């Protein structure tokens, strides 16, 4: 059994070249957005905008300008499926299409998925979308086919700055801790890891080094499993059903008594 594999993405060295996006598209044969007709976002230098069924890698550009644009700060982050240890998509999938692989990654089997889109609503990171080529829900597979052949994922291989690093999770965590200590020693006190420990969904097998709050990168602070709502929601509904049934029985009995009294 192979050990858990994943990504460590060091956003401080991302230069926004989008080589990862291109490599991902090429290897996974993902169609172009809008049939290849380029549509500019109009309010950002990023035109991919979001992860979905045909964009499994997305370099987020966080463009912070002051009012007269004399001061600017750019953050870049190559976003991808987090391959959560406790995966919300896998938890709610009603067909069994979503599986955990021998590499501890999360993969949607396209031949099983029937496109109910429950996983899209469950993913706390907005990662999954429908791929119009297959009409099924799709996302990053962490290049399951390449892993099985002993290769590293296409995006990590293409990354020219090693912002995306691939390897065994335990090894990646060691590297991340060392990098975090280095940045802090250099005075970057905002540096932090996101998803490296078990706090977030039991750990993210694709985790990040950030230099600001998670929300600045469009990441939820404390994502949770969908089933957190299952017990209470079911209990309230059951209590409601009992109240309604009791109300029906009581009013039916009252009707009978009233009519008996009339006769």
């Amino acid at each position: 059994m192979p050990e858990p594999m994943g990504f460590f993405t060091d956003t401080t060295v991302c230069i926004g070249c989008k080589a990862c996006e291109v490599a991902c598209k090429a290897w996974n044969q993902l169609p172009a957005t809008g049939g290849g007709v380029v549509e500019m976002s109009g309010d950002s230098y990023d035109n991919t905008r979001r992860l979905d069924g045909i964009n499994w890698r997305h370099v987020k550009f966080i463009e912070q300008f002051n009012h007269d644009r004399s001061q600017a700060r750019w953050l870049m982050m190559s976003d991808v499926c987090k391959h959560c240890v406790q995966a919300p998509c896998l938890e709610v999938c009603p067909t069994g299409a979503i599986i955990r692989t021998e590499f501890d990654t999360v993969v949607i089997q396209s031949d099983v998925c029937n496109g109910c889109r429950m996983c899209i609503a469950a993913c706390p990171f907005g990662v999954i979308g429908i791929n119009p080529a297959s009409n099924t829900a799709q996302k990053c597979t962490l290049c399951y086919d390449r892993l099985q052949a002993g290769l590293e994922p296409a995006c990590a291989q293409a990354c020219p700055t090693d912002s995306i690093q691939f390897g065994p999770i335990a090894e990646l965590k060691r590297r991340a801790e060392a990098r975090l200590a280095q940045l802090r020693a250099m005075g970057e006190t905002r540096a932090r890891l996101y998803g490296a420990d078990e706090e977030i969904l039991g750990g993210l097998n694709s985790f990040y080094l950030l230099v600001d709050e998670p929300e600045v990168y469009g990441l939820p602070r404390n994502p949770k499993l969908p089933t957190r709502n299952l017990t209470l929601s079911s209990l309230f509904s059951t209590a409601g059903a009992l109240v309604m049934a009791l109300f029906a029985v009581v009013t039916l009995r009252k009707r009978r008594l009233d009519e008996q009294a009339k006769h």
Partner: protein
Amino acid sequence: MPDTFYTASPHWAWYIVWYFFVGGIAGGCFFIASLLKLFGRPEDTPVIRTGYYVAFAGALLSGLLLTLDLTRPERFWHMLIQSNTGRLMFKAWAPMSVGAWGLAFFGLFAGLAAASEFAEQKNLSLAALRRLARGIPAMVIAGAGTVLGFFLAGYTGVLLAVTNRPVWADSNLLGLLFLVSGASTAAGTLILLGLWRGSADRSSLEWLSRFDRGALALELLVLLAFVASLGSVAKVFLGWWGALLVLGVLGAGIILPLFLEARQGHRTGTLVRAAALVLAGGLLLRIVVIFSSNQIHVAGSGVSP
């Protein structure tokens, strides 16, 4: 920003809105008819039959709507049977999985109930089927119908809560809200059909109206509690969706019919108007709940000051 705002919309739209509406009515009709079968009187038979017929028709329509909503409709059966092993597919903690089985059993029992009552009504020479409409078999079907009816009316709201989407996953009261709304819209449907066909006994209609008022009063409380339970997420209702929720669902769909029935009693015109308002309000509730969430789609990237 709340954590649910970083998620993508599943783009559940009109098929699902109509399914939630039809499923609520079908579920409500099944449990109302079943409770009347168990605790009502012989005069209630026309309403019971209508309730069973609507439940069965609603189950068929629900299955159709859900299948059409899939992006691969021909794989609808993957919900029930594992396509790669042939084994049964069931996850007790996944509402869509439980719902698929729930709807299948609902359809089965609603079909048995409707077929047996139809055989009785038309005096068909199908003794085995007609036996299901009487005695212990009828009690068993009605008992199952009560449970399955409540399930179908309510699980859809629980399903929405068991996601990570704004509004839906920010409250634990959607299941209860849909359940109560299913009861009120089903009572409204049975009142309208009973008046239209002219078959329903007056005392059945008066009881349905009484039951509807109880359901509406409960729905009023649950709706207010639902909005309160959203906390800061309730700000998504500052706009058109909020206006529709307050004026349409709350005002026209709950308070106005309650007011009409309280003032004008059981006059036929009042019953019709109140029932029609309840149905419109029930549909609007599902429209507001689905689309107010759908408008929020993957926040947090791009330019910020």
